């Protein structure tokens, strides 16, 4: 229990030290440096009050600067050095080396997949649950349960889902739920409905939703930037629609291995989705909580007016409620996007990037602590930072707007 004693000492020293610092620095300021008496009392009080905020701020600013500010620049610097050559400046060589690696592009592709699927699905589920539970008597219990995975660590969730994906040899009892369900399909009519028709319907629905969102974006009016945004979004939407329609063809022609237990996490490409399920399971609760609060904040008059005008529940939801909580949806979406960009534990614990499931954060960890290549590892960290920075700028922009 050596560590426990150290911990206790740290709490006492840390908390006591902080309080002591704040107290004595204030006393020093008021009594010694600028005493509020003597000939310059007035001037001294003013001066003390100018300095005091910085006394309050100093420890926090120091921690922020040292633990988050400085590393950004230091990582940038490290990404331009080569550790093996005695930290010689090598320009963009680390980046070149990284861009030449297939594993990096695999991580980029997977991260993009995560970025599209996880925020969209979590937000959609969150919105669905928020809306449905709003109207039923046991809604709070339901919310609590769906919110619960938020408390579970990514590692714990990985264990939970590894049990679900577990596979046993053919003809023995399957202990993973997914395989237990899978071996029930033998290629009959039921299999056709669940494994062909249903996915096709879902894919077409997805393509439809994406196309509709694209249509809404293209109708936006605005200046030059909006035009750029519209062009980019249009291309992206077209690509997504194309992909989902291509997948429809793929699903219809695929020859599925009915009745054979599958090692789900080793099936390239699709295993990414099995990993994403874990994060979606965790993040849906977050989306639900925020969106539920937003739904309750909608002015009652707007809903009542819609009812009076004869709108049906779907119209009320999609045409009255969703547009009003759009800003919150964007917030939820971006927050989950941030989590996705940093996802590490799930991939590390479940596949460790094998079978083409690598993501940027795990790629970076691999480079830093297994290959001991700080240059390329730092370059990967900078790529993550670059992917995050649009959201960073957007957040600062909004925060400043709110301040004014």
């Amino acid at each position: 229990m050596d560590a426990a004693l150290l911990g206790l000492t740290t709490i006492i020293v840390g908390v006591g030290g902080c309080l002591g610092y704040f107290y004595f620095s204030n006393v020093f300021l008021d009594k010694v440096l600028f005493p509020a008496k003597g000939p310059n009392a007035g001037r001294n009080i003013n001066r003390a009050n100018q300095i005091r905020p910085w006394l309050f701020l100093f420890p926090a600013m120091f921690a922020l600067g040292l633990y988050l500010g400085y590393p950004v620049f230091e990582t940038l610097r490290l990404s331009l050095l080569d550790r093996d050559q005695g930290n010689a400046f090598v320009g963009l060589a680390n980046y070149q080396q990284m861009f030449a690696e297939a594993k990096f592009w695999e991580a980029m592709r997977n991260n993009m997949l995560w970025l599209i699927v996880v925020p969209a699905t979590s937000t959609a589920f969150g919105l669905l649950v928020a809306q449905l539970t709003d109207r039923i008597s046991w809604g709070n219990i339901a919310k609590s349960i769906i919110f619960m995975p938020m408390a579970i660590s990514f590692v714990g969730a990985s264990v939970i889902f590894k049990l679900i994906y577990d596979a046993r040899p053919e003809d023995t009892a399957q202990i993973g739920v997914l395989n237990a369900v899978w071996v029930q399909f033998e290629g009959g009519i039921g299999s056709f409905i669940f494994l062909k028709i249903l996915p096709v319907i879902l894919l077409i629905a997805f393509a439809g939703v994406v196309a509709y969102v694209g249509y809404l974006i293209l109708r936006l009016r605005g200046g030059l930037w909006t035009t750029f945004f519209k062009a980019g979004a249009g291309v992206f939407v077209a690509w997504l629609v194309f992909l989902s329609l291509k997948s429809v063809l793929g699903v219809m022609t695929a020859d599925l291995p009915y009745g054979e237990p599958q090692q789900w996490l080793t099936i390239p490409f699709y295993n990414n989705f099995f990993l994403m399920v874990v994060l979606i399971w965790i993040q849906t609760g977050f989306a639900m909580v925020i969106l539920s609060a937003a739904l309750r904040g909608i002015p009652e008059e707007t809903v009542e007016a819609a009812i009076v005008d004869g709108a049906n529940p779907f119209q009320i939801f999609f045409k009255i409620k969703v547009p009003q909580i759009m800003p919150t949806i964007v917030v939820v979406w971006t927050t989950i996007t941030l989590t996705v960009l940093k996802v590490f534990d799930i991939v590390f614990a479940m596949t460790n990037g094998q079978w083409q499931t690598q993501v940027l954060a795990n790629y970076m960890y691999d480079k830093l602590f297994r290959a001991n290549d700080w240059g390329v590892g730092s370059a990967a960290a900078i790529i993550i930072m670059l992917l995050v920075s649009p959201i960073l700028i957007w957040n600062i922009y909004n925060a400043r707007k709110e301040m004014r």
Partner: protein
Amino acid sequence: MADQNADRGTIVAGSQQFLRGLFSSKRESASGIAGSKSSLTWVVHISVLALVLLWIFPTVGLFVSSFRTGDQIATSGWWAALGESQQNIVLRAADPDDNRVADGDMFVVEGNLLDAEGASGTITVWGTSSRAIDAYTAGEIAELKGTETITVDAQGNYTWRGSEDEISGRGQRVFATITAPPEFTFENYDSMLFDPTNSEGMTKAFFNTLTVTIPATIIPIVIAAFAAYALAWMEFPGRALLIAAVVGLLVVPLQLALIPLLKLHLGVGIGKGYLGVWLAHTGFGMPLAIYLLRNYMVGLPRDIIENAKVDGATDFQIFTKIILPLSFPALAAFSIFQFLWTWNDLLVAKVFLIDATGQTTVMTNQITELLGTRGGNWEILATAAFVSIAVPLVVFFAMQRYLVRGLLAGSVK
């Protein structure tokens, strides 16, 4: 500026008003379709029920598995554990040379097959050959070679009868199918938590995690609270800029900080250890702490603070005597966040805490190691995972209201 502050205060307070309604049992009639009983209601109930079951199903699976023995987990799905289970086992009658008793010119061996093997359950069918394990029902008499017979009843009591030659050698083998009631054991928890000889036990990792978590939760709060007060209630140039910087740092991925800070820690002699991980968590938790606390403090009533100032209170007194007690909900919200985050963290612990000796391993790290070495031993994995999940779940259900409030205040709007 003063008016802006007051306005913002009312806005925040107003928004918090409706947020407080969340998770409270009061139901406002106007949300949803006011008054009209929709025909969709039963669809809503069923879909919510389906979603809830889908969401809780994975956790329940792990929970149930952690109370089953390794054999049980490996031979049947956890959902089977909730009902009666069927199992095929091989049993053997007692050694005839020691246990046979004469009965006229025959010899008899009697006893209980299940008790001898330490098995429990009810025998439904049985057989004496591995090719026909379901040849006889319980209670039926099996005619073996010559005069030899054996009968086994549902409780496992058997009577094995035959001539002197036949009742000799080794005990008769019986293949039985038994139906056992649901059976759960605390054995896994016993060996993972209370067995000092188990090198894979979670006890040490549990206390290590606790040692990391508590200082890493308390220290940032103290530091951040002062800064938040300055950013909320003190006037100085550059304040807006600092707030913007905090908002910006909220999203900086901590991945960037790993190498520079590890270099720094090694350079100044902190090295890998508790001190390093506490400092790292303090730094990484700081933006959210300042942001949450400032947003809350700015909404506190201005009158109280100004009255205190008029009465001659210093900023330090105002902070400790007025602001801190009033900010309890925000402090609670942040501490839950930070607690969950540090308890569940893997990356920061791996980089800043766990050295080559592995003495300071935390639970998340131990579980990932077990996933590598004991990938198929679900009784170990499930128990280890549940030990690490249990504390956050308790905290979660006990303090859910504060967590929700913190989430709502913490997502940048």
